[in-house]
């Protein structure tokens, strides 16, 4: 079903006729701005910046007629990468579509175009005392469309759930150029949640053009706290105990000893220990109640409070106001449900020891179903992260050990459901032009 990329005479003119002069380009410098290194030879790659959902629909119809792949691009966060043949064609950059279409402060609902960055949306909401919620600041760099199109476990908060659960309605252009607008409702019982077919579909079933999102009032109070626990697993248990007690913190993080030293300094942790960091937010009394529930849970697991300044350091790093000493990307990320987190941690350490290396671990992105463990592979001789080559060599065995202990590797596509997804794709995108390489079975 992969679209054939043919020579496309006058494609640029046709695209300009849709999006207007200056909004369609094939110049390498412009492509590099969105992270694309175009090949010098044919087929040509065109970058278009539509200004409306109607223009996107026309672009998709044109791509159907010409049998040309059409793929979304986001903000360039990486060095330019070469496109594969199947990806070349029309690249759609939605960042001209960056308007707030409607802000309903009575219902705490915002209708926003897909090209607005989540960070910019937060800037618009903040003066009104509003916010998207306690989501990890790292995800706010995405456009709203990008944030919703790619589903990962990290886009969540213990207090506000998963980002896609904030979607009350969605507008999109399907693979055949049809525009759809799902009805906005707080909840409904009219069949499956159709908006959720587009959330996570990575532009394969349709391009999200705008979304109606639930927003929140900024919390009346926010409390930060830090606790020292005897070990990493005790810190995880303290988190689970607090959640059982109904605590709904804004954010949580658990550092093992090495990670705590790297992120917070030597004074935060004793040998073999771990640090639990928590932010609670909401009405003052309730935020204080959640803080106290976490404190009593930590205490029950042998924890002791440590200086709040450690939590403040973490919060500044988390919100980008202070550089994190451990800013290097972790070697691997695995997700595990609460009952498996301790076993996964033990398996990671054991596999690392067998490979003659060490691991540095922290747990974050807690949600009702689990958390993500961020793992850095360490060279014991230097105490530093492994070099790229050594990391690649060691990663496989560590990942297998984690999986055997009950972890799930992030980013896999469930193979059992692939035939159904591919079938849906063929029906909604019969020409096979929509982001053709995304979400293939087993892709990461």
């Amino acid at each position, binding site marked *: 079903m992969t679209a054939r990329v043919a020579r496309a005479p006058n494609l640029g003119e046709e695209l300009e006729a849709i999006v207007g002069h200056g909004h369609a380009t094939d110049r390498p410098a412009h492509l590099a701005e969105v992270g694309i290194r175009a090949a010098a030879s044919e087929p040509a790659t065109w970058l278009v910046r539509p200004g409306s959902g109607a223009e996107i629909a026309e672009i998709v119809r044109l791509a159907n007629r010409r049998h040309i792949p059409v793929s979304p691009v986001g903000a360039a966060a990486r060095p330019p990468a070469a496109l594969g043949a199947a990806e070349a064609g029309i690249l759609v950059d939605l960042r001209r579509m960056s308007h707030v279409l409607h802000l309903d402060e009575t219902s705490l609902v915002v209708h926003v175009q897909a090209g607005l960055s989540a960070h910019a949306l937060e800037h618009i909401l903040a003066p009104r005392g509003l916010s998207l919620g306690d989501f990890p600041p790292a995800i706010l760099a995405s456009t709203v469309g990008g944030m919703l199109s790619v589903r990962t476990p990290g886009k969540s908060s213990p207090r506000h759930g998963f980002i896609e659960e904030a979607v009350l309605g969605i507008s999109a252009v399907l693979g055949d150029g049809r525009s759809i607008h799902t009805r906005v409702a707080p909840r409904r019982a009219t069949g499956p949640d159709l908006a959720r077919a587009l959330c996570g579909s990575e532009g394969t079933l349709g391009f999200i053009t705008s979304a109606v999102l639930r927003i929140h009032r900024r919390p009346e109070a926010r409390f930060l706290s830090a606790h020292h626990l005897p070990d990493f697993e005790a810190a995880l248990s303290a988190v689970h105990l607090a959640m059982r007690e109904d605590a709904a913190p804004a954010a949580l993080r658990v550092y093992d000893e090495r990670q705590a030293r790297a992120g917070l300094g030597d004074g935060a942790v004793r040998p073999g220990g771990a640090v639990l960091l928590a932010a609670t937010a909401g009405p003052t009394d309730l935020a204080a109640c959640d803080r106290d529930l976490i404190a009593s849970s930590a205490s029950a697991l042998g924890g002791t409070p440590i200086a709040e300044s450690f939590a403040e350091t973490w919060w500044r790093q988390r919100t980008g106001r202070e550089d994190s000493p451990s800013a290097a990307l972790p070697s691997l990320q695995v997700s595990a449900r609460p009952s498996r987190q301790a076993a996964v941690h033990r398996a990671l350490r054991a596999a690392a020891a067998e490979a003659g290396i060490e691991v540095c671990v922290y747990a974050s992105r807690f949600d009702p*179903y689990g958390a993500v463990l961020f793992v850095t592979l360490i060279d014991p001789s230097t105490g530093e992260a492994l070099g790229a080559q050594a990391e690649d060599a060691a990663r496989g065995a560590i990942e297998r050990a984690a999986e055997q202990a009950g972890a799930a590797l992030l980013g896999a596509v469930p193979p059992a459901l692939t035939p159904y997804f591919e079938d849906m794709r063929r029906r909604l995108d019969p020409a096979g032009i929509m982001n053709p390489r995304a979400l293939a079975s087993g892709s990461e």
Partner: protein
Amino acid sequence: MTRPAIDSDRLARALRPIVGDDRISAKETDLTTYSRDMWPRLLISIREGTPLPHRAHLVVWPETVGEVAEIVRVARSQGVPIIPYGGGSGVCGGTVPVKGGIALDLKRMSAVAKIDRDDLICDVQAGANGEHFERELATRGYTFGHFPSSIYVSTVGGWVATRAAGQMSSKYGKVEDRIAGVTMVTGRGDIIDTDGLARSHRGPSWTQLLVGSEGTLGVITSARLRVSPAPELRVLRGYSFPDLIGGIEALRRIMQRGLRPAVLRLYDEFDTLMNALSGGGDRAPADIRHHHAPSPPAGAGALPRVPTQSADVEERSGLLGQIVGQLVPKDRRRGLTQSLRRELVAATLSRPRLFNNVAGPVASRGLRRGCRMIVGLEGSRVRTETEARLTFGELERAGGVDLGEEPGRRWLEHRYSVSYKMSPAFRAGAFVDTMEVASTWERLVDLYRSVRAAIAKHALVMAHLSHAYPEGCSIYFTFAGYADNQKHAEKLYDELWRSGMEAATRAGGTISHHHGVGLLKSLHMREEHRESMAILEALKASMDPDDIMNPGKLGLSAGGLS
């Protein structure tokens, strides 16, 4: 009656090797029982002794997911529809076999697996009865927090298939908010599991694409549900507001402040009046009562045994019972013959506009009853106490008057009685039904007025608001209508629903909050989802390419009664 050309004998021969003789039935009584649910339009037929419009060819009781898969493959090979069947408690005709086929009763698949203390996830089979499931959880120290009024007769699979909501959804959420994954036998006969517990997979959430599918994509055989520790404390209160608008504003403030009471129910003026007239009137304001007077242990009264129905209770209960109660002195009610009762009901319900126009203003201005609200909080002791203090403060700032604990306790004790109040109304010649719509707060008052006006032309109507969210709320209309014969009653019923659904759509609401679509709302799915139906159609074609799974539902293919 429609009987598509399906060879029942051939079908039974193919199914016997899978489930044996004992778990297949072609008995008339079984086929009749399994060819309907509690859709009030069908109850009109039953009252009049008219045969049901559609009937299944066989009833089959599988015991394993493997058997379900084999049954689906047989049905697919013979082109026979399958209609998954739980408790039969739906009110939208979702289990009506419009093309005949196999009624697949899942009640023999009812196992409740072990719950991990840290994960708080319970794997439960679809046929588990709601009451049994909740009692089983209670013995282990947990709750699912899902208490629909049908809990004694509905199943977990039915809840998941229809996106159901319970009476404590403001804290615990609807079923779709509490589900980690499902196991389904698709219309192709494959067994699939959705979403790992830690949700690590890329791609759309298959769980959310299957929840609410009402049997049209496959058979949901089990679900991984998020449970909570059993509450340590429950706090209940009644409040009174001068009018509905004030009460709505209070609901909004509570939810948007981040508070999550388990129960938030606001009754409109007419419903409040009816409640008062039936003896459930609010007592004197409880100014002197301490806000934190000891509450009953959370376990007490959370799930009473199936309500027994004395004649007197039956007579007094429900919208019609209350009307009869007001029109006839108590000492003479027992002596009413059925025909006199029917005449009395007919006299009242034949003039819905008059009664609707009078009742609201009388309730709000004449009797100054205002609007009643029931509030309940539960959970861990410390957090519940804190949340209760903040919630009650918010209610008082919004103009609410504290009525003390008694209205809340009374609601808790009688909250399942409502489902047992329909029979007297139908026996009296009327029909009673409910319509649950929802919208964002910005549109909610308009939605209430529009839908109420649409129903009020045809039936006596009252409403309450429950299932509140930070961004909006559901409105639950209860109505009673009357016509002098079945044909007229069905015409009136259809016209009422058409008006109500159109009014909901025009006002920007959704046509269903938690009852589902079934046959009742199938024709309105196009207005609800418009062009987005393309996604549902693609999903259907992918999961059930031969259209054997519960055909005629969700607006996916031609269905209907005629």
